[in-house]
């Protein structure tokens, strides 16, 4: 299995430009997540999809950010216009199962992370 694939691995752009990050989840995984990691804020969930439908986008910082999942094997995260404070590592992750709830425990089964896209906005 190739794992979660992200492209590009590195992106350097100038403030105001549009940036598109791409993700291919593991085949057969119905859940896809976009995270952002910075030194100041750590790892934060931006949005997640189930069966290509956005379920929770409350972590998307502002309207400049948008995410789509046109089919089960592809998702994009777009920033338009980009700003220097968007500089971060963006991770895509996928999971084969959704959240679980048992007596006394809840959470997710394993989320598989991609290698990330390191974005620098100048």
């Amino acid at each position, binding site marked *: 299995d190739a794992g979660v694939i992200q492209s590009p691995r590195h992106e350097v752009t100038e403030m105001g430009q549009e940036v598109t990050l791409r993700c291919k989840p593991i085949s057969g995984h119905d859940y896809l997540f976009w995270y952002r990691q910075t030194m100041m804020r750590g790892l*934060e969930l931006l949005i997640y999809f189930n069966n290509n439908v956005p379920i929770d986008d409350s972590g998307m910082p502002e309207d400049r950010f948008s995410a789509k999942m046109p089919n089960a094997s592809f998702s994009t995260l777009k920033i338009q216009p980009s700003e220097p404070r968007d500089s971060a590592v963006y*991770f895509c992750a996928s999971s084969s199962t959704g959240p679980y709830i*048992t007596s*006394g425990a*809840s*959470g997710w089964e394993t989320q598989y*992370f991609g290698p990330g896209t390191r974005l620098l906005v100048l």
Partner: protein
Amino acid sequence: TQLLEQSPQFLSIQEGENLTVYCNSSSVFSSLQWYRQEPGEGPVLLVTVVTGGEVKKLKRLTFQFGDARKDSSLHITAAQPGDTGLYLCAGPSRGTYKYIFGTGTRLKVLA
């Protein structure tokens, strides 16, 4: 707001030494996960603990979930350079299933 504070923030030790890293919160978590992230890669799940007081072992790594489910620890015995990385704890926020990640412990094991 639920937070997961990890300590220490940085740790540099010699090969063969033992170490413990901590993950603490003032809130109860129904479960906690530990991840290791190597430079240039995404986090990789190591373990999930779900029961207060639970202890899980993964080779030289021992994970413990606090009785009150507000804290967890990771103990590494005889650390090796391959253990170098960023260790993150994470848990589902109350009322939603979104994972809250801890502040992280950056470990470096010197040969």
